């Protein structure tokens, strides 16, 4: 018993190690939000819903699921992580998968939930905190040498570096260059599909070859185990049976199964009644009485 528990615990430990070692999956939560682009000096760039040119902060949902930013905190002061609480319960705080939202850093929170209670004039850092007000989701250090209408952001969604961008692109991808699809890139190198055929056939064979190897060995193991089970232990008298499970071919099994099936299904003619040995009692009840369920004849 102790040995079994030991094996079980070892198995759990191995699984945990594998999980920890390979856990790169996205959480699909507020943790997937990140700052994407900011504009500190807005002279003639995008205007807010009041027609004002103010500093703005763009946040990108890097997950492949809708994420609610409501409840999170934005701040320009790391010693005060809960400076601006993003209200909850507003559908506008839902950010679609791989999409963007913009907050206006104008120090006018009365203008709506996307207007922050700080601006970026003196800000050296901006940070996004989770709803607990403690867990840092993302942080950006803002260089001092900001130029009017030149945004500072990631050159593309996957980049970790921040640069000054040529175009300001609020609520859209910072990388606006024409891109080739994965297929086009593949075909540029492999125009006739030979490479694809070789790689794909290799992978298909590999997948099924692994199954083959496992099942070949597993088959041997089960055959051996079956043989061992049929071998009498010392001192034990085993009644010899004519066929062991392994000796019986699939065809024999199929024949037996067919015979059983026919025996069970075709032994009798089809009958649509049920035979029972239960007592059938018809106790009187006014609920089932014909007298009360039939309409009375008119007089």
């Amino acid at each position: 018993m102790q040995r079994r528990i030991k094996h079980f615990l070892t198995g759990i430990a191995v699984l945990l190690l594998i999980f920890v070692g390979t856990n790169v999956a996205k959480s699909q939560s507020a943790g997937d939000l990140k700052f994407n682009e900011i504009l500190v000096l807005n002279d003639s760039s995008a205007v807010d819903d009041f027609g004002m040119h103010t500093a703005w902060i763009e946040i990108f949902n890097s997950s492949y699921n809708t994420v609610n930013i409501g409840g999170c905190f934005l701040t320009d002061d790391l010693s005060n992580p809960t400076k601006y609480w993003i209200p909850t319960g507003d559908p506008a705080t839902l950010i679609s998968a791989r999409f963007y939202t913009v907050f206006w850093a104008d120090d006018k929170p009365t203008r709506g939930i996307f207007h922050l209670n700080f601006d970026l004039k003196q800000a050296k850092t901006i940070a996004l905190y989770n709803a607990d007000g403690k867990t840092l989701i993302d942080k950006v250090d803002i260089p001092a040498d900001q130029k009017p209408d030149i945004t500072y952001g990631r050159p593309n969604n996957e980049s970790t570096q921040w640069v000054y961008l040529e175009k300001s692109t609020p609520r859209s991808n910072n990388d606006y260059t024409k891109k080739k699809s994965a297929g086009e890139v593949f075909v540029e190198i492999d125009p006739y599909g030979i490479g694809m055929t070789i790689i794909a056939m290799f992978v298909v064979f590999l997948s099924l070859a692994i199954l083959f190897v496992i099942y070949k060995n597993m088959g041997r193991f089960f055959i051996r185990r079956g043989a061992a089970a049929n071998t009498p232990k010392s001192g034990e008298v085993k009644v010899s049976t004519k066929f062991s499970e392994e000796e019986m071919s699939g065809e024999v099994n199929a024949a037996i199964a067919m015979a059983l099936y026919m025996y069970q299904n075709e032994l009798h003619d089809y009958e649509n009644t049920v035979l029972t040995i239960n007592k059938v009692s018809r106790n009187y009840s006014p609920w089932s009485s014909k007298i009360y369920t039939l309409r009375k004849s008119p007089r």
Partner: protein
Amino acid sequence: MGTFIDFIIEHLAQFLQFTAFANMTIGHVIMICIGLYFIYLAIAKEFEPMLLIPIGFGILIGNVAFAPGYQIGIYESGSVMNYLYFGVLQGIYPPLIFLGIGAMTDFSALISNPKLILIGAAAQLGIFGAYCLALALGFSPTEAGAIGIIGGADGPTAIFLASKLAPDLLGAIAIAAYSYMALVPVIQPPVMKLLTTPKERLIRMKPPRAVSKVEKVIFAIAGMLLTTFIVPSGMPLLGMLFFGNLLRESGVTKRLADTAKGPMIDIVTILIGLTVGASTQATTFLTLKSVGIFALGAASFVVATFGGVMFVKILNLFLKEGNKINPLIGNAGVSAVPDSARVSQVVGLEYDKTNHLLMHAMGPNVAGVIGSAVAAGILLSFLA
């Protein structure tokens, strides 16, 4: 009175403009004829009736010409047919069908003779043969990938991949895939006979051994983990296939397995067949591309059969006498279950009335289902 009569005539004329007669084109007539032919094949010839009846009738529905703007057509947002087609476009139906296939498939033949698994891999050559040909004919890489999967002879996989890579060609690809699956008994035998010698056709294979329940349960779990760890993009199909199989083999979820392989797969088959058929509106379907897709589909089935049969012949060079495989089961590596296995049986019986190949052919046949799903995952990884 005259004004009233004018009113009646005017509105009758207006109504006539709404009828299918007024909107009919020669394309619609051609498509309706194709739909009727599918129904004829299904009823009179019993070619894949479960598929060809819904698809054939779907073609009729899709080609009733209507005035646009009334949320009638399958491509009009908000129409009933559009809602039903959503399951095709988003690739929802194919994994559900795979769940049912898993619940009704017995992998014993494969487990008892694991080398048959490799035939299922070899027959996927048809997919990549068609992919190369499609590229040569000028199709875009994603279109070529979606067309290539026809060679896997697996309708749900073809729909799944086409919906991701080339939604515009989905109707043509699905129709081609299902049509050629129905025509497996016509396409495969000549290739099988051409590639085999009389002596090879008479090879008798060892009867498969009995497989224990534990082995079957382990197969469902290990099969899913191994294949999806290598090709995660095939997970929707492979995951559901092996899940359905576990429901079947665990022995404790009979009700779930019965639902998966019974009412559920029937419902999804009706929906997928009808909507795929209806997606072949003449205006979107009758193009030169569709003709190309049909030609490539036929070629892919031939290449797939070639790949399977030739692989067995090569494998036999390394196998001892008594362990050799009859190359007539090589064709079953395509995943048209159980039609291609049935073809092996029928062709085998032509040469030896007592040599039953059906159970042996089921091995590569179900391996083909796994192989084509893996191949679809690879294409999706590289091209999407």
